[in-house]
């Protein structure tokens, strides 16, 4: 017989009510800071934005972003978030370097060399949309709408944009990507 | 270049090795009366005082991080000798500055060590990259604190 005592459902309900914060109400109890330290000096920042990190690890940390002169100065964990309690991870803290990295793809590019050569030329967004529009219409005429497929996973695991791409693809009649890694 | 004073007993081998190629010795290690070790060799500083004070820019920090002397520009005025905390500038027969260039010419590209390091009997003299050295010391510090602990 197991020697471990079992909580009755009522005890569990009381436990949840006692130990877990209420639902549906903001748990923020600190006002957002207006200054921070940087390079051993105190600097005032334009704003501190509360958001969350949508990388594919299951903690979805609460984040405080310090923005100064339109640039992400630094990132800290949200102290009011019950899970990460003001702390993030080695990757989270490097975000200013990633967001403002000079290596980012800056504008649309169209391939000029062979596939895999990596040679591209710059394109405006209008030209890119026109190019993609022609290809999609041609594809639907020649192969049918199911010849289009979307490859998406959890580079940014947030759900909102996937629904809008889902709406377009279902209107277009493309194949639907399912399953997970 | 780093001298580990603990292991050095000022035997002078490095000075002899440095002077072999017919040039003046550019390193000198003496044992003081009180037993302390005084090491006079160039640390190849990041912002060398000798280069800052040299009137004709004979001493300058090279691209590879070694401080190199150009005797043809040198006046022999010894301002660099006074400025350098380690008295690491030596002067050849003609009174022109002649200092350690880590055997730059002969060793470029080979993995051989500078003459003085090779000659050091006790391995007290080491040629180290400053960045690499801090990583080594941190590893050693962590290892030294190694405790096989259980909760």
């Amino acid at each position: 017989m197991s020697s471990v005592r079992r909580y009755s459902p009522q005890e569990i309900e009381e436990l949840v009510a006692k130990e877990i914060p209420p639902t549906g109400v903001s748990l923020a109890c600190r006002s957002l800071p207006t200054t921070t330290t940087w390079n051993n000096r105190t600097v005032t920042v334009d704003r501190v934005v509360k958001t969350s990190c949508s990388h594919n690890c299951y903690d979805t940390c609460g984040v405080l972003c310090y923005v100064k002169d339109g640039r992400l100065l630094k990132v800290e964990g949200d102290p009011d978030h019950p899970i990460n309690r003001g702390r993030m991870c080695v990757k989270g803290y490097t975000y200013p370097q990633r967001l403002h990295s000079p290596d980012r793809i800056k504008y649309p590019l169209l391939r000029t060399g062979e596939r895999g050569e990596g040679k591209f030329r710059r394109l405006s967004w209008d030209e890119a949309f026109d190019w993609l529009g022609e290809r999609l219409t041609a594809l639907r005429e020649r192969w049918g709408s199911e010849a289009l497929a979307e490859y998406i996973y959890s580079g940014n695991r947030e759900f909102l944009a996937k629904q809008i791409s889902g709406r377009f693809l279902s209107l277009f009649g493309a194949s639907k990507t399912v399953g997970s890694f | 270049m780093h001298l580990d004073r603990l292991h050095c007993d000022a035997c002078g081998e490095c000075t002899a090795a440095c002077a072999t190629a017919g040039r003046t010795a550019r390193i000198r290690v003496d044992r003081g009366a009180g037993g302390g070790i005084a090491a006079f060799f160039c640390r190849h500083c990041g912002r060398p005082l000798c280069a800052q004070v040299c009137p004709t820019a004979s001493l300058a920090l090279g691209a590879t991080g070694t401080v190199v002397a150009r005797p043809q520009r040198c006046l022999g005025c010894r301002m660099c000798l006074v400025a350098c905390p380690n008295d690491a500038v030596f002067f050849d027969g003609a009174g022109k500055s002649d200092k350690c260039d880590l055997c730059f010419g002969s060793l470029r590209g080979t993995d051989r060590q500078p003459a003085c390091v090779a000659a050091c009997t006790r391995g007290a003299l080491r040629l180290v990259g400053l960045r690499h050295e801090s990583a080594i010391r941190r590893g050693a510090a962590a290892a030294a604190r190694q405790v096989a602990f259980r909760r």
Partner: protein
Amino acid sequence: MQAAEVWSRHTELVIMWGCNATGAGIHQDVCYLFEAMERGARLIVVDPIVTAIASKADVHLRPRPSTDAALALGMINHIVSLGLEDRDFIDRYTYGYEELQAEARKWTLERTEQVTGVPAALVAQVAEDYATHRSMIECGYGHQRYTNGHQAQQAIAALAAVCGHLGQPGAHCNYMEVGAGYAGLLNSGKVQNPAGAQIKKSRLINISLFGQAMREAVDPPIKGVIKWRGTMITQHQDARRVIEAVKKLDFLVSIDQFPYDDTDYSDLVLPACTMYEQWGVHPSYRHQYLQLQVPVVDPQYESMPDIDFWAELGRRMGYGEYFPKDYTGLDWLKELLPPDFPFEQAMHPNGPIRLPERFCHPIPNWDGKYNTPTGKIELHATAYDERAKRFPGEWDPVARYVPSAESAEGDPELARRYPLLLISQHPGTRTHDQFLNLPYIKEIEGPPKAMLHPDDAAARGIQEGDRIRIYNDRAESFVLAHVTRKVLPATMELDSGNWIREGGNVNQLIHQRVAGPRDVGHGVMEEYDFQLDGHTTPFFNLLVEVEKA
């Protein structure tokens, strides 16, 4: 998932099974775990590799890779033989216990030790401690990354059921329950299929076999791919054949933040925004708190938020009525989230909020209800009966240990040519291939390194730091050797996510196969059942050989 705040205050023993918490999700598990341990709870880690969290454990079980099911069954057998199982919990809440007992009886401690390599005394001690304490099991994906992954997870759940450690504060078996995102918080169906639009049913592509689908799909073949928020070539298995398939496409569009393998093979590359430049909602699949994402800074350079890209594409392709021009991210969120959702509470400057219990209860199964056909814990999974007939042996309603397809036991002939099993752990400093190109991360990690056991290294004349070539029939990777006892003999480890162009990519070596039932054909399907049709990819199901490069 039982909330960490609950189990960390009540549990007396935690088994971390196949979960390198310091690799991913360090903030929740590790911190709450330390608080529990400092309160006296004991930690047992089951992981073939010595990880940081394993070093903090009281007991570290190191089963041979892919033998987790055998270990779990061995523990069940030992618990039942000592009569430590929770009889009335089994009688009230489980179905098919006798069949499980029959299967578990085969797994004496000696056989368990012979198959898993874990000493019998250790298995016995851990089993007894688990049964006699209020114990949690925290499952990662480590043990699921083999072709017998689903069996391993089923055996672990059965172990928890046998001891009654389910639905109790401090006693539960946490594994990936996909969280609020799929439990009705988001009415994705309404957004993806707007009212008034005639949307015909289209075929389904299983992402685990996307490469195979691109090669073999017919009427029509896949000719156009829009790739975003994921890496198709670096992270897909058997990259070489994926590239072959990509070359036959009419067009490949990549929406990415950085140039890397995928963008090299794309026709059109579009600049993507990071998560701090756009709206978003990201419910966790491990806890119940939600903080809506708001744009922090303007999109950098000419990058465009993903919402605007798809809406603009929709308008350009003539579906303007379904993509209103003035819709902002917040408007879309209002359409996606339930009408009674407290937006301003969950958004900057407020938040986070806790989601109602109906989406994710802090202590699931506290009321003894289980959504299975029999309403009970199905040690004999009735939903799998039909499929067990079509795939005898491979698939069985009761947890059983079946050697992984590409392993020494599973394929002895292949193991002669490629004796080493290669595990690709999730690196703590990266999310697979993301962050790899950042200077700070590059500096911490250094060049890609693979871990090799001293005996295997000595047998091949490999020293620490040598450049080695890891190869099998599919591809080869060049990395540096890190000779260490952190891995078991005949096992190697190489972090996942290294780019192909930078060298050290491991996924290109992996065979493209789905873990679990085989009913996904070559990737093109009509129906997809979330619980049945192959949930993950056997990344660790990989035999390789290594030599000095």
